[in-house]
């Protein structure tokens, strides 16, 4: 086959690049193999059962890690899972998706002596899998309070809040715009981190406590307003995540083949047959966070031949951890640092190349262009340069507007917003955008709502 080189290479975007079994291995197998019994026992026995352990402090949800690991040692797996889930109801997802290398495992005291922390994430998975395999819901609801709370957004923040509220005896209605619950666990996290439909298994587990009514396909701002919810419910929790993405602000952004990474991943996560997803032969990813890593690895695993991440600063500045960067490289992804996009070059409205300019830091530490650069052939260019909060749905038709600061919903320590009875958490408020942080926000907000409602009760 010969192609006319005079006009540059034509885009090569195709589905079904790999044999059928490769898709199963690439997307339905765990990126990290779970531990078997003997591995779990050996690993658990490495934990010193530290007092006031640093790992607990490093976990945003404050799981009592030494205690759950000791319970694995003693064969009390139900107790172990319960210890995990009482602090973090998404302990199963977090065991799979948390960047433990910068959280609990970085704090492990074993790092000081031997640079090899206890594999906390894998042990957490071992214990929670035991419970899920048996369909046990270890928590019971407190006596019904008769209070009703609206939770907007069925992601980790919203569902964590809903579960805790249900446990405290309240009745919860979850409003979710998408057809399925789970938020980014269902639509965003890399497929190989949560294979085998784990997100839905976990959602069912969370809901099995009872007292939570889920209404999917209902969007705040479209189907109802915040003012209406405040009228109809005793309190409201907003966990609506980030609906927008940053623009590249480079020429050629409108070309076909220039794609928002998060939207593509959502499609990929929902595709039953991954062989039907069109993917470029040469893929360029712009960004330096986990989304960049995830889209790069997943397009590689869909059969892209060359995948290059281009990031405008150095490896140490990337949002993706060292572990994630290494994972991408092991998967055959090339990472180029210190270059920023200048334009996407296209033909007939379709992207064919991406042009970059090398960057450097000037004397004042600012990032500047160097006027020299390079061009990479690209059938697809993925934008993974960050998501943004879109406030319209919460502001729509409001007499009293919710206060937004630095582009996110403003909350205090208790996760209370500027409006009485309205709480918020997860990606739509400031803080680190991680599943575990969203779960903690939801939990804290639930307790604040509980105090708020009981306070009102006392006053009445």
């Amino acid at each position: 086959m010969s192609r006319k080189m005079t006009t540059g290479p034509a885009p090569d975007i195709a589905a079904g690049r790999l044999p059928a079994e490769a898709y199963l291995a690439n997307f339905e197998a765990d990126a990290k193999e779970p531990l078997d019994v003997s591995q779990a026992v050996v690993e658990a026995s490495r934990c010193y059962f530290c007092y006031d352990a640093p790992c607990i402090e490093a976990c945003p949800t404050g799981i009592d890690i030494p205690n759950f690991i000791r319970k694995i040692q003693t064969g009390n797996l139900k107790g172990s899972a319960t210890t995990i889930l009482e602090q973090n109801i998404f302990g199963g997802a977090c065991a799979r998706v948390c960047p433990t290398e910068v959280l609990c495992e970085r704090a492990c005291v074993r790092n000081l002596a031997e640079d090899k922390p206890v594999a906390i994430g894998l042990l957490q998975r071992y214990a929670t899998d035991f419970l899920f395999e048996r369909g046990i819901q270890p928590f019971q609801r407190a006596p019904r309070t008769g209070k009703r709370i609206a939770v907007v957004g069925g992601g980790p923040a919203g569902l964590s809040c809903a579960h805790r509220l249900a446990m405290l005896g309240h009745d919860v209605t979850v409003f979710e715009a998408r057809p399925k619950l789970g938020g980014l666990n269902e639509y965003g996290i890399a497929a190989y981190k949560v294979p085998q439909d784990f997100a839905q298994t976990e959602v069912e587990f969370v809901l099995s406590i009872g007292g939570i009514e889920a209404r999917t396909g209902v969007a705040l701002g479209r189907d109802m307003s915040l003012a209406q919810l405040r009228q109809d419910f005793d309190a409201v929790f907003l966990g609506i995540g980030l609906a927008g993405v940053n623009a590249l602000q480079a020429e050629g952004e409108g070309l076909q083949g220039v794609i928002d990474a998060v939207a593509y991943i959502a499609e990929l996560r929902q595709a039953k047959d991954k062989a039907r997803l069109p993917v470029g032969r040469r893929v360029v990813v712009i960004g330096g966070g986990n989304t960049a890593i995830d889209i790069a690895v997943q397009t590689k695993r869909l059969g892209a031949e060359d995948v290059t991440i281009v990031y405008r600063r150095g490896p140490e500045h990337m949002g993706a951890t060292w572990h994630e960067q290494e994972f991408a490289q092991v998967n055959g992804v090339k990472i180029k640092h210190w270059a920023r996009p200048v334009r996407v070059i296209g033909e007939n409205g379709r992207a064919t190349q991406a042009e970059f300019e090398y960057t450097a830091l000037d004397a004042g530490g600012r990032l500047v262009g160097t006027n020299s650069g390079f061009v990479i052939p690209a059938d697809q260019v993925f934008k993974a340069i960050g998501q943004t909060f879109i406030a319209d749905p919460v502001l729509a038709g409001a007499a009293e507007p919710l206060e937004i600061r630095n582009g996110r919903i403003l909350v205090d320590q208790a996760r209370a917003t500027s409006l009485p009875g309205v709480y918020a958490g997860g990606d739509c408020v400031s803080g680190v955008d991680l599943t575990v942080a969203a779960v903690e926000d939801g939990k804290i907000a639930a307790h604040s709502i509980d105090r708020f409602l009981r306070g009102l009760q006392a006053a009445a």
Partner: protein
Amino acid sequence: MADLRSNFVGIKSPNPFWLASAPPTDKEYNVVRAFKAGWGGVVWKTLGEDPPVVNSSSRYGAIHYGPDRMIGFNNIELISDRPLEINLREIKQVKRDWPDRAMVVSLMVPCEETSWKSILARVEETGADAVELNFGCPHGMSERGMGSAVGQVPEYVEMVARWCKAHTRMPVLVKLTPNVTSILGPARAAAAGGADGVSLINTINSITGVDLDEMAPQPTVDGKGTHGGYCGPAVKPIALHMVAEIARDPKTRGLPISGIGGIATWRDAAEFMALGAGTVQVCTAAMHYGFKIVDDMIDGLSNWMDEKGYASLDQLVGRAVPNVTDWQYLNLNYKIVARIDPELCITCGLCHIACEDTAHQAIAALKNEGKRRYEVIDAECVGCNLCMHVCPVPGCITMMKYGESEPYLNWTQHPANPMRKAAE
């Protein structure tokens, strides 16, 4: 949820997990922390007559095995070294603040009736639930005619138990020393003296090691050492045996037992209870990890009982006792052989060499196309379990029933036994 509430000789506690009389129960500060952590009760550190004893500096020795620390632990400490009055005041205060927890007071005074009578009256005044007579300490106190010097002489055990029963309305537990040839002597004596129950074991005479530079036993106090009391996970098998002996002896059967010795997990506790212990006491594990371990003990025991369908402790206590028997009644027609799972085998060869060098040459070392493979020769295997124990891979070597089931035949009936009872 299983009901873990315990009523042991009238001493009530929310769970059967007590801290044994030792440093963890030495004073109000510790005991309050323990109760906050969830412990069901304590046996207060042994009280004696004033003036208080004096302790040495350098007190503990330990056995570390591989990566595991303190699998065995030894101490040369004495009874409480604080004034009696202070201890009693604190006991009274803690019992008042924590009425639902078991408060047992351990005592050791000279072997004279007046000494026991007077201290009992003072303990009773604190509102404590019971007393435990420490006839167990193997060091320091025995030289003064107390502790194991009493516990090793059944007549003394019976006599002191009787005095105490006569002079107090509180339940009386007798804590037994394992430093005897048979635990039944002192246990029967305690029962005969009217004790409400026994606690065992106290620590075992031991030297944990020798400092080869100082040429002195450990722990070493200024160049010299002495034997101390051994405890921790290593002593559990000894304690279990002694508990079982008391539980099945016709003269002591039914005597309430508080099990002690190497208990660190809910599973250890369940084993003691299955052999007849109504409550369990813990010392070394708490000294190793702190009071928080009780969380797993409570939760683990409860989850396991739910799984097994035991609704309350009385359904569990003593459940294994009928299956403890004498060797001569074991079924000699029961045959098992080892099975090696080739899928799990990592070909280390330890099973082969154990059997080849020291047992019955029943594991063949084969080479199959250059691959190592180990196979049991059924006809040679006597079912001793050695290979299963040396195998580093859990579940790789298991023991399987072998051959046709023949009828039960024990040693008393066996043709090879010259003293066999004549068959009718």
